[in-house]
Structure formats: structure tokens, C-alpha cells
């Protein structure tokens, strides 16, 4: 599975994308966020305000933290958008 990060979330993580093998115990968006936070200080810092983190699964916005992600190909994490 590919994980992609944007804007200040990308800067705090330290890179823009990575390939990961999802651990067996991780099957939802909220479990993914919890697992990522345990991967190091950079992730802890990037994800310390989970309420502002936006998630897209296979390039579609996902608001449901309980959404199953096990068949996703690409998950993006980013801050609120500021285009326009």
C-alpha cells in the first residue's frame, strides 16, 4: 500500500510518500493513524492534532474513521485544503 503526505504534514513526516505493508492489526483509518503515530517522533509530531488531519482513500475524500482500508491501494494524509 502506498501512503502519501502533503503540505506541513509531509514536512513534519520528512518525506512525501512510502510503500508500506499494513500490519495485521490495522484495518481502519483510525487504526492506521494510531499505528503511524507509534512509528517515530516525526509521525507523532505530524499527527498530534488528529482532528485536523484529512484522509483520502484511492484519491477520494474519506470522513469515516472506521472505514476499512485493507483493500486500498493509496492512502493520502493532509491538512485542511487552502486552494482557490
Amino acid at each position, binding site marked *: 500500500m502506498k501512503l502519501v503526505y502533503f*503540505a506541513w504534514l509531509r514536512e513534519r513526516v520528512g518525506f512525501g510518500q512510502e510503500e508500506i505493508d499494513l500490519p495485521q492489526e490495522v484495518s481502519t483509518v483510525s487504526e492506521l493513524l494510531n499505528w503511524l503515530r507509534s512509528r517515530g517522533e516525526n509521525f507523532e509530531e505530524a499527527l498530534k492534532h488528529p482532528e485536523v488531519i484529512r484522509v483520502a482513500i484511492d484519491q477520494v*475524500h474519506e470522513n469515516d474513521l472506521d472505514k476499512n482500508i485493507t483493500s486500498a491501494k493509496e492512502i493520502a494524509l493532509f491538512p485542511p*485544503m487552502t486552494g*482557490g
Partner: protein
Amino acid sequence: MKKPVVQIQQDNFDVGLEVKKLTNTSNNVGAIVTFTGLCRDEEGLLSALELEHYPGMAENEITRIAEQAIERFGLSAATVIHRYGKIETGENIVLVVTAARHRQVAFDGAQFIMDFLKNNAPFWKKEHRLDGTTGDWVDAKDIDDQSLNKWKPVGKN
């Protein structure tokens, strides 16, 4: 349904040319509305904005929003162009052009597209300051979120 024209590009755009393209698609268009979003300098603080985007999803989201606008308001046509990369103050960032038989739906369609684009199109702005330093990431504004409230789903109150 007429398909919107959606372009995500680094290059600038020509507002007059885009209006002309929509004008030429039909003789039954009575109103064209354009919105152009520019990079402002925040009272002399900024030299530019860096726009980061999510390739693929940016196109998909804006296309989805523009298609909704065409269907909901019965627009004759719509064009949305959004730039990315470094954009100097005074330059264009985004263009929305809507065409319709009458003015009100053209106005409404353009506003609808911009309100949803601000909240859902995956773009992020970072400041470049005139003193040469890199500034902050621009914060999302609550007012952009609130502006969606006026667009309740059709058929509900």
C-alpha cells in the same frame, strides 16, 4: 450533460480566451460569469505563494464539483483552471467560467464551484515572504467551511 473543462497547470491562463471558448460553444448562452482568484501580497508581506497539489485527485475533485454545478443549476458550460507551483503576487491562481441562458444561474454556479473547491480540492498554499524567508502554510478559514451551508442538497431544506 455537458462535460466541464478542467485544467490543472503550472502556466498562467488567459481569461479572455477562456470566455471566448465558452461563448463559441452555443448561441443559446445569455450569460457568462467569471471568477479569477489572485495571489495577494497581504499588505506588503508576501512575494509569492507556493501551491502544492495532489496530482490526479485535484483534477478528479474539481471535475466532480463542476459536474455537480452543471447538473444542479443547468449550466450550459463550465471551465475551471487551477494553477500550481510558485505564483508571484498579482498573478492568477484560479479561474472559474460559467455559461448559462440567464445570469442568476451563471452567478450561482460560479459561486458554488468556488465554495466547494476551497474546501475539497487538494491544494495547499505556502507563503514566500518579501524579506526572502519562507513563511507559514496558509491556514484554512472557518468562513470557507461555513460558506458551504448555503448549498443545502436540492429537495431538502
